[in-house]
């Protein structure tokens, strides 16, 4: 019954989005006064999705093996938290989560936006309903999460052990809130273009949504990076894997959008460009969904073998993107640009930021899709990985970083004060660090040296906008900007430091032997068996010291039974100035065990930086909330 209730809620939600779409069209064309009805429908539709999702959680929590999805992806002997989180660790469940977030975004837009003109809002809700309709159809016709098994399976097939990790509970929902939250920016842009009301009021209404989605994307990517880092046991934090790129592309577009929305709301300029970015950002979310959910990454061939899901998403993507771009092409000419601006000003800096982010987005997009294209056209197989992305996107990111140091130091409208004086300190710090880097660490790669120098200049540059201000009177948005930019500087420092200073040791050792890695002396004490809820393991004991105090690390090789799989559990010791990362491999006939050790100075700064970027966004969002609250109280 639970599964049927969920399915019924999904059908009903789909029907309501169809109704909402028709009513909003009628309202926008002036045939019908349906403002309140469309809003109410959007809210009800969101809650129905939430209800369906809750039903899915329930069947997973109860391990109802008569539901096909549970039987395929869960197991009665699994720890409870992974039973629940396993609900979105598979295709159908994660698509239901996607649709739920889409529905809730529409509901939130309907409930919280009071300051937009009615036509714009209702048109936006119509666009949101159109999106919901397509993805509901996908769920119901191509990915039904509630399909029954008759007879029920005696036991579930279990969850991929790589997914049995707290990361699963946090990472996909966060990422989806970001991915799909961008749908609101898309719908608002479409709504405003339809209603012909693209102005600073729209930007002010759009900004908190972009900000919210962007915060979740940032945190989701950061968490995903750390998850891959400790779970895969490869010591890397970014692999330029297509699945990672699928989340990076919407982030790049959303970052550009976040900045151009600021220009639109402050200066009433960049109208067409901002609308374009809003469309592109959510299009990138859909491209990412297509890449991850169609099976095309496994191979173009397997996509062709089971084409329903892939073609379905591709068709939805094509319809929505084409429609939005057509609308843009028709309406962009009618948008009147606002006041012109000077070549040296905050807004010009943001234009440059947007152009660079667009170029980075372009090269990541092409690099990610190129192998698919080549295989589809010529049948030749190839992969594009770190060598391409680092060589092409790396220097652009450094340029973007330099801009990030200079931009916030410029004033809106026209820079009257001498610019050079303001950028002197950061420039001096950066240049000094660059010289030191080239002299002191000649062996490090150029990108890492530039990254270190950039971070050294960026840290003071990020803080300067706060200096000389009363901290309590500084707007939260300014705090947010400074904290987010500081976060970017810190993340860059971590990436560059990890690239430049990491030492690695790969060896086979007998118990009792010691290994040197970086400043550490590590004694291999031996291996012991270990056991967990649904796994057994071989656990190595390593005693690491660098002068004073002993740190004990226990990396494992785990054996899961359902399904039978082996995984490596790295043991990581986090210290103030870096992480010691250890992995145990196989043993050989002479009683030696393979050990792989890394000393990674300052690597934690990468994720600390990511978290700070998110915190900066949160501060800016809190500023919005405070203003809305005050306005609301003032009536």
């Amino acid at each position, binding site marked *: 019954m639970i599964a049927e209730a969920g399915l019924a809620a999904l059908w009903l939600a789909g029907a309501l989005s169809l109704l909402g779409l028709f009513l909003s069209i009628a309202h926008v064309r002036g045939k019908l006064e349906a403002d309140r009805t469309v809003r109410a429908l959007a809210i009800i539709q969101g809650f129905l999705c939430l209800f369906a999702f809750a039903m899915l959680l329930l069947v997973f929590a109860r391990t109802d093996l008569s539901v096909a999805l549970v039987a395929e992806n869960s197991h009665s002997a699994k720890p409870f938290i992974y039973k629940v989180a396993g609900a979105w660790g598979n295709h159908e469940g994660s698509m239901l989560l996607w649709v739920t977030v889409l529905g809730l975004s529409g509901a939130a837009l309907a409930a919280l936006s009071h300051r937009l003109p009615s036509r714009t809002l209702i048109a936006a809700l119509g666009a949101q309903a159109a999106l919901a309709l397509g993805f509901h159809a996908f769920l119901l016709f191509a990915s039904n999460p509630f399909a029954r098994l008759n007879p029920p399976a005696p036991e579930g097939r279990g969850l991929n052990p790589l997914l049995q990790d707290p990361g699963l509970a946090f990472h996909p929902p966060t990422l989806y809130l970001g991915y799909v939250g961008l749908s609101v920016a898309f719908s608002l842009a479409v709504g405003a273009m339809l209603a012909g009301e693209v102005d600073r009021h729209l930007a002010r209404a759009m900004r908190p949504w972009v900000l919210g989605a962007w915060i979740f994307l940032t945190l989701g990517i950061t968490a995903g990076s750390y998850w891959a880092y400790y779970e895969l046991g490869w010591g890397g934090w970014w692999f330029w894997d297509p699945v990672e790129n699928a989340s990076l592309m919407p982030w790049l577009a959303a970052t550009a959008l976040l900045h151009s929305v600021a220009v639109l709301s402050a200066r009433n300029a960049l109208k067409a460009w901002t609308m374009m970015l809003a469309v592109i950002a959510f299009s990138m979310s859909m491209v990412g969904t297509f890449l991850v959910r169609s099976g095309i990454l*496994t191979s173009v061939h397997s996509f062709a073998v089971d084409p329903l899901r892939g073609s379905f998403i591709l068709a939805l993507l094509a319809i929505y993107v084409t429609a939005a771009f057509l609308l843009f092409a028709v309406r962009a000419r009618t948008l009147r640009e606002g006041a*012109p601006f000077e*070549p040296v000003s905050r807004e010009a800096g943001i234009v440059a930021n947007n152009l660079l982010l667009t170029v980075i987005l372009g090269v990541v997009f092409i690099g990610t899709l190129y192998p698919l294209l080549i295989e589809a056209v010529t049948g030749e197989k*190839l992969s594009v*990985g770190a060598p391409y992305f680092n060589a092409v996107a790396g220097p652009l990111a450094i340029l973007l970083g330099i801009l990030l140091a200079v931009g916030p130091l410029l004033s809106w409208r026209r820079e009257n004060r001498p610019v050079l004086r303001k950028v002197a300190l950061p420039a001096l710090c950066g240049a000094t660090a660059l010289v030191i880097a080239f002299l002191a660490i000649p062996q490090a790669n150029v990108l890492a040296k530039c990254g270190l120098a950039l971070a050294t200049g960026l840290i003071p540059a990020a803080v300067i906008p706060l200096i000389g201000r009363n901290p309590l009177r500084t707007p939260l948005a300014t705090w947010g900007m400074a904290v987010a930019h500081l976060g970017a500087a810190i993340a860059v420092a971590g990436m560059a430091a990890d690239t430049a200073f990491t030492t690695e040791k790969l*060896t086979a050792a007998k118990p009792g032997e010691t290994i040197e890695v970086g400043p550490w002396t590590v004694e291999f004490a031996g291996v012991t068996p270990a056991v967990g809820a649904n796994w057994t393991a071989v656990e190595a004991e390593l005693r690491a010291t660098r002068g004073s105090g002993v740190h004990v690390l226990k990396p494992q090789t785990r054996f899961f039974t359902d399904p039978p799989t082996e995984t490596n559990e790295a043991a990581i010791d986090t210290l103030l100035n870096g992480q010691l990362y250890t992995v145990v491999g196989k043993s050989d006939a002479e009683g030696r065990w393979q050990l792989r050790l890394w000393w990674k100075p300052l690597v934690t700064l990468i994720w600390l930086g990511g978290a700070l970027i998110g915190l900066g966004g949160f501060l800016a969002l809190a500023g919005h909330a405070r203003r809305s609250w005050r306005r609301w109280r003032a009536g």
Partner: protein
Amino acid sequence: MIGRPKHQRLVLVSLALLAVLGAVLLAMWGLKDRAAYFYTPADVVAGKAGAGKSMRLGGMVERGSVKRGADGVTTRFIVEDGDGRVPVTYRGILPDLFREGSGVVAEGKLVADRSFVADNILAKHDERYMPPELGNQAAEHKAGQTLRK
């Protein structure tokens, strides 16, 4: 840039077009010699793969060919596909599902004597996840079987 809004708009549009064009040119330049092509042992034996270029080699791990070196961390094995055999050297911890007689994709470079030095070994993670090229081979294999029936 200073001047009438219309003029400025033209400048902005051209800048945006330039950015997109720049991205395409940059990507093409980057892809020219940084894309790693996928080769089978048969391709390597036939001399299709050039030495010193990053590439992927995919096939089956020949039974009885896996040997561990004296240092305990270097592994030598042979990747074959029925039409060719290529010796592979890998220094590192092998993935959990690396087995004799099962599929593997090695990332690395071909050296002068037509042996392959791998920096990275991808093997089947579980029943459902496969590296793209292996998945492809399996799919083609299946398709072939279906045809023969």
